[in-house]
Every structure is written in structure tokens, then in C-alpha cells.
């Protein structure tokens, strides 16, 4: 996010308000593979009675871009951020993917006319003879 868009727009990414809040109160904790940065309140507690935790996004602000290991820390499920432990995903875990809705990689159920797969058989289909 450029500094100009941070000043003149408040949609889509971090605002200068976020920047000031993090400068005053935030302590940098770590960064995930996507480049999103995580912060924690330096002192005091938030309205929940514990130190606030923040994420600033590398690209568009999209909560589904937070990978599961950071999601746990961000939501106070765990207290140790993945950078401070030897975090390894379980073997059965799939690689994290953000929500692709609205993009070309969006999920299409089988039978959708937008899939590139072969259309399933429908009533009225016939197989035409072709000379070899």
C-alpha cells in the first residue's frame, strides 16, 4: 500500500489511523509467509481485558488471508505466536488459501456452466457417429 492511498483512501487496506495506533501502542511480533505483519499492544489491555493484537495486510485487507497458525494467535486461542515456537502444520493439513470468491480461481461445483471440466451427462444428450 502506498502512503498516498493510505492517506486518501480507507477502503481496501491499512489507513494512516492504523499506522499511528501501531506506532504509539504496537509491538511488532512477526510476519507470515504472505507478508502480513502482526502486532501486540505494548502495555495495558484493551476492552476485552487483555492486550490487543493487530494484523496489517500486505495487500487487500482480507481476514481469510490470515493463515491458521496466526489465526490462533490473533484470536487469543494461543499465546505463543508461531514465530516463537517450532510451528509445523499437521501432515493432513492442506496449504492455506484465502477465499477466492470473485476471482478466476473461485470454487465451481461440478455441473456449473463456469467450470472448464466436462459437462456431466444430461437428458437429451446423444453420441454422434463420426466417420474414421
Amino acid at each position, binding site marked *: 500500500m502506498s502512503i498516498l492511498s493510505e492517506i486518501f483512501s480507507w477502503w481496501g487496506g491499512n489507513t494512516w489511523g492504523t499506522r499511528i495506533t501501531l506506532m504509539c501502542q504496537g509491538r511488532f511480533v512477526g510476519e507470515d509467509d504472505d507478508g502480513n505483519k502482526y502486532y501486540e499492544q505494548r502495555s495495558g489491555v484493551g476492552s476485552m481485558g487483555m492486550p490487543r493484537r493487530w494484523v496489517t495486510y500486505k495487500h487487500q485487507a482480507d481476514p481469510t488471508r490470515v493463515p491458521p497458525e496466526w489465526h490462533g494467535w490473533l484470536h487469543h486461542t494461543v499465546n505463543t505466536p508461531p514465530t516463537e515456537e517450532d510451528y509445523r502444520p499437521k501432515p493432513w493439513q492442506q496449504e492455506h488459501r484465502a477465499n477466492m470468491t470473485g476471482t478466476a480461481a473461485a470454487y465451481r461445483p461440478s455441473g456449473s456452466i463456469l467450470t472448464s471440466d466436462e459437462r456431466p451427462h444430461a*437428458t*437429451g*444428450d*446423444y*453420441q*454422434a*457417429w*463420426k*466417420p474414421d
Partner: protein
Amino acid sequence: MSRKLLIDDVEIEVEDGLTLLQACELAGREVPRFCYHERLSIAGNCRMCLVQVDGMPKPVASCAMGVNDLRPTRDGTPNRVDTRTPLVKKAREGVMEFLLINHPLDCPICDQGGECDLQDQAMAYGGGGSRYDENKRAVDEKHLGPLIKTHMTRCIQCTRCVRFMTEIAGVEELGAAGRGEDMEITTYLEEGMLSELSANVVDLCPVGALTHRPWAHNARPWELRKTESIDAMDAVGSAIRVDTRGREVMRILPRTNEDVNEEWISDKTRHVADGLRTQRLDQPYVRINGKLQPASWDQALDAVADRLTATPANNIGAITGDLAGCEEVFALKDLMNRLDVVNLDCRADGEAINADHGRAGYLFNSSIAGLDEADAILLIGANPRTEAAVMNARILLSWRNSDLRIGVVGPAEDLGYDYDHIGASAADLARLADGSHPFAEVLKSAKRPMVIVGSAATARDDGASVYATAARIADAAMAGKDATWNAFNILHTAAGRVGAMDLGFLPSTNADQSASELDTVFLLGCDAPSISNLQAKFVVYLGTHGDIGAHKADVILPGATYTEKSVTYVNMEGRAQLTAKAAFAPGDAREDWKVIRALSDRVDKTLPYDDLEALRAAMYVAAPHLAQIGHLTPADAKATASLAKSDNGQLSDAPFEPAIDDFYLSNPIARASAVMAELSALRQTATKRTEAAE
């Protein structure tokens, strides 16, 4: 003798020998039933048809109780039968509750849903609920072959399927093992049923225990459009109902026609449906530089028209195929006559059958219903089991119920009934003709003898002699008997053959070219194996499937199958029947007569009819009996006598070959069907196994 009964206060008089259930139906009362079926023996094991009879301590099963079994009342008044009393209602509710004890509640996933007797009768006669709290019985699925899907937990043991296979199909392959709650319907060896009529058990099954495997979970009965039509898989002309959804034929079911198929159809008739959507010709093709190229109708018709106008008429020939309906045959004949073409033929296999002696020379004169009355049958080179499977069931039933004697000249195949095997070759016919064989005496003493000649038996070098000798045997058997009975019968295998012969699609007397010398040949859906040897330089194929004819063709014109057009088929006994258009032909394919009409325009010999009505009007002028839809038009029996005198050539001692090598693959639609291919493979392995065991 008749007997008076008082059924629900209605006094009726019924004939002796009827059952109480039939008497109740005559009185207009509906009696629920599962095991009882008009065409099968009486089992009396479902107990659903209970009625109250005055003087009986308990309700009685009306299907198994004859009216003659009732003891006369003391004062001579008619016996009283009640079907609507509280006792009967309670009894039926009780029976229904017992039947539903072990029946799963899986109607939403059952293919029978919507056409299920148990579902309907549970609604009409069942109680509101069940008092049964224990576990339900579960039964293993049985393997009954590729046509029948089983879900034996749903079975209510009515044994209709067992009785059908034994009594109608003539193969004792199904049976009931175990007693009481442990009773199961099974094939013992679980090898799949090998009968041409096996799929009829699914129609008989009152629940969803037996369902059609090829259509499993494809459609619900209420979403299908039903069209009543006629089958074209064999020359019997069975009445069928074609169920379509949109433009696809989803299934084919039998209709009742007492004179033809009763209510059975063969497996081929029923399950050929998937062949209607595979290997279809859906656009015209023209052969350019040795390769078939897709073409427009204009290009294809122009190519044919150019060729027809440029070729001398005596070098042009036309052959119609097994599935050609009367309308297109008539239009093609009309067009060919206008082009002065005389080399026409509808007997692609080379049968010696002809129309020179009148219609009786090529019809099944005794009629299919006549099989019930016949008391001696001689089969010459005919295997009714493969050539007319439904008809064979009729012979079998007649054989079981009467003293019918059957003699066979030809291969000694398993037909389901016992017969005297007279010989394998045509030379054995001579012994019947001169009366030296004992079976000649059987024919002579029979009141209603029948001589059935397979059409393929005449498709050999001595075919004309076989044809004439058979007529001579029939003529001798008829001597001095009922003049309305004609014993001479031709067993055709092709639905379109009799219609084409009625319309005279035969070489005229001055036709001097044999098929091998023709320059240009027009094939109307002809896929006979002999076509692959055709030497013609230019072949036009008007048909539906990419089969023998299409591979041979220089121009392919796509046509419509029997479910996609309304045409007249004349069955082997001479009964004209109309098919109905159940779906549209795929792609650019058109109804065959329209293609011929369009072609006639291009060769400047425009046919004078623009719609089907006008075409039919012209056709009925040429062959008036075709207008008698559904009626049998008997032929003059004098033909047999004149035919008997016709040819007296040598009969060779070459054995008769089977007319149909493979029942399941006898026409282009069946050859395109995956279900038929599977059945054919199954039959071959089974035959090999039997041969190995012997």
C-alpha cells in the same frame, strides 16, 4: 353351467371355474392383490385379497377360492360374498401390517416409487401405522444379471417372478429358498438369468425388489411423457409404451395387446433404448477423395440427385432395410418408379420368399393368437426363441396347456419345450413332404396344424425349393380341414419386411441386374451383412446409425428411428400398426419420407405429397389394407396351393443355419446399445461354459 353369487348385495351370474376374485371384479369390486396375476398360476400366498364369505368361519383368499368350491346354501339362495365389511377391512389392514413389518421405508430412494403396488395399496387398504418395534429383516442382494437390479430386503415373497420365469419364459432359473421369514428369491447359482424375456419380471414385481438396472435412478415415472407405440426389433410388432423426458427415450415398457404380445416384451425391445442415443447419424456426409466429409443437406441431396440423373435407370438399385416403415418404403418406390428404376428389393438377406402367389405366400397366416389353438407345429429352419421371443412364450404356454406336438427341421436348439427333432437339413423336408416320416402323420391328423418356415431358411441356394416344399407340406396338412385355417406361416425377423412386400418393393419381372452389377445403390436403412460385399460405385445410405451401411456409403443422409417418426409397420401376420413419434431425431436428421420427398424435388420428379396425411392417402390407394390400423387382414389361402406347385428343385443336405447369430445384436440400434453388448457377452460366456461342462 353358471352360478349365482351375491357380491356386496349385487347379484351376478358367473361361469364355472372362475375364482372369487374374478367374480368380484365382474361385479365391479376392486380386490387388492399382490401375488395374483391373470397370466400366471395361482399362488395365494400374499393374503391381500381376503373377502368375507357367508358360512365361512374366517375371511378367505379370493384368488385361490373357486366359485365352485362354495358350498350351496341350505335354502338354495346365492352365496353371499362381501368385500366391504368391517371384518374385511380389518383383515386387509392386518395383512398389510404384516407385509410392512419387513419392508424397508425407503420409498424416497426406491426406483419403484410412484408406480409401486405396495405403496398404492398401503395408502388405500393399510392401517395408519405399525405396532412393530423389533429390528427389520435384511436380505442379501442377488445377482440376476445386467438387466435386473435387486433389493431383496424389499421383497414381499409374492413369487410372481418365480412363476413367470418357469411358466412363461420356460427357464427354471428363479426359485424360493428357505421358509417363513427366511424365504428368499434366488437364482441358486447367481449367474444371471439367461432368458430373452427376463426383464418382464420387473414389471411383475409389485414392489421395488426387482428394478431395471440400466435405468436405475434415472427418472421418476411422473416426470416422463408416455407415448404408445409399436416395437420394431422383431416382426412380432409388440405393443410398447415409450417413456421420454425431453428428447431422450428413457425407457420402453410393454402395453397389452392380447392378439400379439399379451403383456410381455423381449429384453431387446425393452433395453435397446440406450442404442437410440449412441452411434447416431446426426448430419449428412459426402465422400470426397475417399473420405466421408460433413456436408449440408443441400450438398448431400445435390450429390445424390446428380448421380441419379446421370446414371442410366437400369444401373440404379434400391434396397430397404429391416427397420424401414411403410411410408418411406412407399415414397422411395414411388420415386424409383418415376425414375424408371426396376431393381428394387426388400429382401436384403436373399430370401426366396416372394409375392407372386399372393399375400399368403409371405405372411404368418395362422396368426400369432392362432398358436393357442394349434395342435401340431412344424418349425422349418426357424428358431422362434431368437427370431420372435414373445411368440415363443406363446408356443411354450400352448405346449404346457395342451397336447401340442412340435417338430423341428433345423438346428436342435433349446426352445424351452420338448420337440421331435426331424433333421437338421433341407433334405429331411422331403421325407415330410412324401409322408414317409411319422411327423407327417401328426400334421395330417391335427385339427389345426401349423408349418412355420423361418425366413432365413429360404435364404440359401435351394431356398426356392425349401419355400415350395414347406408350402406343399402345409397344403397336405390342410387338406379337408377348416377352410378358414391356413397352416402356412413365414416367420419373419424384420419389422419392415412384410410392409415392404405388401407395397411390392420387389424386383419387377424385367429386372435383369443382380445386385453385384449395379452402379448406384440407394440403401433405405439397410444394414444386412451382405451389404459389405456390395460392388456398386456409388452407395447412398439413408439411415439412423453408423453401422454396416454407413461405412459403405458415399453419401449418408441421416434419418429417424422408429421412436422418432410415425410410420406403419406390418407385423408378420399382416397386421398394420402405427408407431407414434415420441421424440425428435437428433441434430439435422429428418424423418425418412421427408428426405425422399426433398430428393424427388432435386431430380425433377417431385412426389405429389407434402405432408404425412397426403402420403398416407396415396399409400392407402396402393395398398388399402394398410389403412386397417391394428386389424388383421387375412390373406387368401389359395396362395399356398399355387406355391406348392411352383418349384420342385433339389433340396440340398446342407444343414439350416440359425437366422440370428446373436439375439442381442440383430439390428443397427441393438448393435449400438451398450446394454445389448453386455448381454451378448454374458450369453457367450455362458454358452462356452455349458459346452465345456458337456
